[in-house]
């Protein structure tokens, strides 16, 4: 077996995905701030004519942050840590190296076409699966290439036992593949109508309630397999590496992994509580959502306990701050979700701003914080330079933490207020409020949320500047740092 020192890992693909993560992160969150502001100040809808309305931009925001920022961060982390935990370099296979380039190229093609088509309003209109069939075909192709690279590296590995992160990356690949294929089954209309109409248009294979079931089986599990599974893969690698601590418990990681795999898929039904899907399925969705607390908290607690005896690092190292807070937000978010799944709570929460509030304490606090920490941990090793500024990183941490708190508290209040107003009746049983009353009352909360978003975006800018300066002007490192990332 070769030692670490003699194996030259290939980071060219890692660098590319680091840059796309930074760029898509900024663009996606900029659009996010704009659409948040549009709800508070509707005149902002008219900046770009027909292309600038809230409704047209909202899927662009979600797609750019989910599939641009997050996936880039995941892939940068996978290509970095995958080589290292498997003890194999991409350079060892010309074929796999070429595929990584193709992977990145196709990814850019998809990103460009996605942005264009969503702006033009070409959409299958399923949430988080808006892309029309020609794009779906390229996505599937790209996914297959990613799979070949991953299993190719696994085939060439020197370390025979798969590290925990690899379990999650494998699940990420399989889960997304299965869900994406089934949810995007659609029939192109041009081929069945004697060549009529737009070539890119298609119609869903499923109708009505069935379509809703498949969509939320996907919609919920896109959260599972993009926002949870690979992010856990990242924290299982980067937290022990940055802190120099061993993972607290192997048994707990086993329980959490297999538990998460088994339970997560069932929980999709909680998006359809009180809808027209069968009652037993709604109940299953609620019950399994509550069960889901176990494996979720299992991973988070495993990570927090990994810091046992080394909590002083929390004050000394901003990257540890990011990762510990990420685990904490993961716990908050995975407790909040099950609460919202309970039928009586869902009756109030569903359709209100509490839902985007919940999503954002998860994505801003957990996903994005973990991505920032991972990218910053990789930067000194990939660029072989010291992190440009520790104080900038500290400032970013605090600004963004305040931003997340502003975001989810305002949306909690907004959601519960509106949910209660919709159902309020007077002593004769008549509805008290017209719909518009329940909208006008939200104005201050929308304004606070937009302000929180703006703060978060400022943090992203600080991060982008920091990583750019690290890559170009950081002090050169002679030796790869072993644990704590060096920062000026």
């Amino acid at each position: 077996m070769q030692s670490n020192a003699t194996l030259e890992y290939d980071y060219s693909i890692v660098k590319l995905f680091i840059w796309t993560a930074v760029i898509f992160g900024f663009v996606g969150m900029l659009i996010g701030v704009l659409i948040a502001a549009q709800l508070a100040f509707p005149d902002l809808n008219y900046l770009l004519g027909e292309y600038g309305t809230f409704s047209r931009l909202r899927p662009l925001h979600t797609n750019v942050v989910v599939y641009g920022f997050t996936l880039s961060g995941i892939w940068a982390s996978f290509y970095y840590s995958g080589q290292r935990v498997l003890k194999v370099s991409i350079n060892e296979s010309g074929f796999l190296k070429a595929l990584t380039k193709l992977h990145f190229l196709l990814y850019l093609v998809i990103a460009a076409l996605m942005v264009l088509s969503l702006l033009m309003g070409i959409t299958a209109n399923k949430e988080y699966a808006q892309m029309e069939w020609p794009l779906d075909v390229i996505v599937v192709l790209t996914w297959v290439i990613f799979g070949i690279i991953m299993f190719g590296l696994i085939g060439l590995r020197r370390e025979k036992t798969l590290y925990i992160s690899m379990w999650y990356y494998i699940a990420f690949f399989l889960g997304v593949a299965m869900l994406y294929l089934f949810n995007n089954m659609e029939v192109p209309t041009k081929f069945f109508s004697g060549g009529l109409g737009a070539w890119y248009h298609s119609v869903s294979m499923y109708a009505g309630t069935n379509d809703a079931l498949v969509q939320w089986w996907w919609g919920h599990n896109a959260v599972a397999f993009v926002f949870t599974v690979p992010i856990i893969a990242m924290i299982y690698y980067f937290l022990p590496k940055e802190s120099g601590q061993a993972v607290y418990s192997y048994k707990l990681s086993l329980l959490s992994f297999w538990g998460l795999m088994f339970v997560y898929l069932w929980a999709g039904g909680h998006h359809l509580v009180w809808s027209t899907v069968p009652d037993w399925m709604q109940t299953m969705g609620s019950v399994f959502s509550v069960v889901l607390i176990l494996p979720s908290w299992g991973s988070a607690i495993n990570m927090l306990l990994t810091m046992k005896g080394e909590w002083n690092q929390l004050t000394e190292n901003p990257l540890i701050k990011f990762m510990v807070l990420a685990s904490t937000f993961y716990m908050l978010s995975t407790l909040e979700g099950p609460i919202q799944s309970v039928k009586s709570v869902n009756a109030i929460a569903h359709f209100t701003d509490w839902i985007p509030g919940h999503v954002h304490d998860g994505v801003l606090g957990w996903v994005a914080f973990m991505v920032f920490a991972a990218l910053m941990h990789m930067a000194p090793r990939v660029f072989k330079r010291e992190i440009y500024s520790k104080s900038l990183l500290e400032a970013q941490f605090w600004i963004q933490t305040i931003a997340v708190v502003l975001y989810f508290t305002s949306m909690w209040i907004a959601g519960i207020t509106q949910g209660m107003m919709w159902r309020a009746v007077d002593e004769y049983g008549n509805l008290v409020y017209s719909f518009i009353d329940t909208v006008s009352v939200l104005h201050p909360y929308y304004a606070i949320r937009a302000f929180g978003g703006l703060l978060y975006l400022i943090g992203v800018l600080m991060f982008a500047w920091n990583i750019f300066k690290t890559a170009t002007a950081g002090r050169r490192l002679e030796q790869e740092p072993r644990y704590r990332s060096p920062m000026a």
Partner: protein
Amino acid sequence: MFHWLEKNPFFFAVGVFVVIAYAGIIEILPNFAERARPVKGLKPYTVLELAGKEVYKKDNCIACHSQLIRPFKSETDRYGQYSLSGEYAYDRPFLWGSKRTGPDLHRVGNYRTPDWHANHMWDPKSVVPESIMPAYKHQFTNLADLETAYAEAVTVKKVFNTPYGKEIAPGKAAFEKYKKDILLPEALKIAKAMKRDDLVKMVEQGKVPEIVALVAYLERLK
């Protein structure tokens, strides 16, 4: 067993796949046979309505509007009869939405009129002063894509046996005939009910603006 799996990636992957696919098989498959039946008397969307549904999708109305009335008194008082599964039998894709920044639209055709929609889409504040919805003026000039909507009707008839009559058939000629005989008169009726001369004039010239198709679709939601 777990130690062995962690050294054998193939079987590990198979194991993961079985564990995650299991839920889908049990939850989703049985529903497919059971729930796809339309309620009695439900007609498939006309081509004009389908074109309107495309406008609804294009401008992504589901970002703020649901089409799902839940079985609570507060919702049935506000929006009407709660939604039934069979009412969605011809909805591909389903358009329930997940957020109500604006009100539910599943039965909007019961309590709004075409001219109300015309005013509202042109300038929401003119009918709801505190509205935060943007105006959709471009829908008054952009033309609806009727041919694609027709192609969709032909496709669902062929592939999913959606009960359309003989008038829905493949090919350009069939489309042109349908447009002249059925679609344009239907659009003209809507345009007149919207009480805007510019729209009536456009339809009379054989051009259907997006807003006319959209209102036809919204009127159908009952």
